[in-house]
């Protein structure tokens, strides 16, 4: 029960989750406000009029999902932090979930965090796509994270703890993380040459000396192959960086 655990029930959620068809059309707000309390800033903040005018200040918000475009202005205005925006069209496999997050430090865009469900349980890795923290939001920043599509109605919070070690720097020269490597592998870049070209991993001054073994291990893990069977990247000259100016003085020998 919501009133004993703080966790909305499946039945509660059914009243606010839009249809599959609507979700397939793009971002939309999810108003997880299940109790009649005297409050209406969602209605007053929506410039599009997607939320039905309150007859009684104790009304629960009624969202017209066909008018709502998921702009997310209501998120920071909701005193109960009960509004989220879900965009299932973000990519083929991922959905974007916008979450109000009033903690410090804020996550950084491009890094990975851990997606938590309504019970605070870690459920997935999530990439931080955007962090909005404008003056208008008045200290209620909104963090947009990309989560596996099937978890779009599950992830409602985030933890900066790197539960999956995704923020581990694998390639120091180009600063590519394990999470990014895993993402590329998921997207079908499953050889070290492809990962190198898409991410620049191994293209820096060290030419893959520190990262290539870690990447190979990650490919092996993700694809169920043996490292011994994986192709390595091409080794080219030089073994260490050399100044162009030195190469010119190449003839002064016997």
């Amino acid at each position, binding site marked *: 029960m919501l009133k004993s655990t703080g966790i909305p029930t499946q039945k509660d959620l059914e009243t606010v989750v839009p249809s599959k068809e609507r979700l397939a059309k793009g971002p939309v707000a999810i108003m997880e406000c299940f109790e009649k309390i005297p409050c209406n800033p969602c209605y007053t903040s929506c410039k599009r009029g997607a939320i039905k005018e309150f007859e009684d200040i104790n009304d629960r918000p009624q969202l017209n999902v066909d008018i709502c475009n998921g702009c997310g202005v209501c998120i920071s205005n909701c005193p109960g932090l009960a509004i989220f925006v879900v965009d299932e069209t973000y990519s083929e496999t991922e959905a974007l979930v916008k979450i109000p997050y009033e903690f410090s430090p804020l996550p950084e865009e491009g890094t990975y965090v851990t997606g938590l469900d309504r019970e605070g349980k870690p459920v997935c890795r999530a990439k931080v796509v955007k962090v909005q923290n404008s003056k208008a939001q008045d200290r209620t920043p909104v963090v947009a994270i990309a989560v596996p599509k099937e978890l779009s109605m599950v992830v409602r919070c985030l933890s900066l703890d*790197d539960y999956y*070690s995704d923020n581990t720097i694998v390639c120091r020269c180009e600063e590519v993380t394990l999470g990014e490597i895993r993402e590329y592998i998921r997207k079908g870049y499953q050889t070290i040459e492809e990962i190198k070209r898409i991410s620049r991993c191994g293209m820096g001054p060290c030419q893959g000396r520190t990262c290539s073994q870690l990447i190979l291990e990650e490919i092996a893990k993700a694809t169920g192959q043996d490292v011994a069977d994986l192709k*390595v990247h091409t080794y080219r000259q030089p073994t260490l960086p050399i100044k162009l100016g030195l190469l010119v003085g190449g003839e002064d020998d016997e």
Partner: protein
Amino acid sequence: MIKTDIAVIGGGPAGICAAIDAAASGARVLLIDRNSQLGGQLIKQTHMFFGSQKQHASKRGIDIPGILAEEMKKYQDKIEVMLDATVLGLYEDWVLTVEQNGKYKKIAPRAIVVATGASERFPAFPNNDLPGIYGAGAVQTLMNVYGVLPGESVFMVGAGNIGLIVSYQLLQAGVKVKGVICRSPKYGGYAVHASKIRRMGVPIMPQHRVIYAHGKEKLERITLIKLDENKKEIPGTEFDIETDVLCISTGLTPLGELLWQIGCEMKFIRELSGHVPIRNEEMETSIPGIFVAGDVAGIEEASSAMVEGRLAGLCCAKRLGFVNPDFDELKQDYLKQLHDLRSGPEGDTIRKGLAKIVI
């Protein structure tokens, strides 16, 4: 263009011995090393070596280069040493490009012994790039070559021989070693090395892994987790240890870049710790005239590296027509020494690996 009969790349135990035996057979040798002194990793080893007299057993690593240098003196008209010289490339026309003290040089050898050693492996965990997290090689260099302490206290990851030895060296330098972990139920190094540090009070902790490093500007703390017998993490067993240095010693992998560049056939052999060149018993790779010796041919001990070096030097010289009058006896002796060094239970893995790569 510098001309020579044989270029030996890498002046560690394998390379020095290759140069000596090639010169003893009558070949002109250029021995190239990127450090300021010969000896490779030996110059950082304060402990006494195992093996037999032939491989300078019970001598300290740091003293072996001197002994070998003495032997090299006999052939000083044959061996030229290039120090502070990094081989940048090995090209298909067999030209070696080298940078030495800010100068670019080219070498045209008739045959090559590649004895470039190994590079270190690093595990992936969040914040593994924080200052204070160093490879065992870096710690040894800093401490034993330059006399600079890596920090106040060190936690060691990896309990192979290197992890155990470096822990001991840290104690000798006056650094507190807070513990040594490894993932397996048994540590990988020799028991005598483990006992040496254990009786100095250093805890050896099998079945542990580092899962997190913490610190703002530099390392302050690490989080460890316990593993079960199958090296799987046991949730809920995480705990933190404060340390300003984390020393990583999770193994070496053969440094075969030059062999890849020239196109030697390579194969991944887990028992030899990575990609190694296919070769015959004389240490000649799939490209005639290109020989290998030491860790680049598979990770082993310095003792076997020295013998492999002698074998490679001897046979490389023969490839060019410089046949040592005692070629057969020497070759048989080197093969026997290698056989003996690898014959015990600790050599089991190496023997299995070699069976897959030596043709």
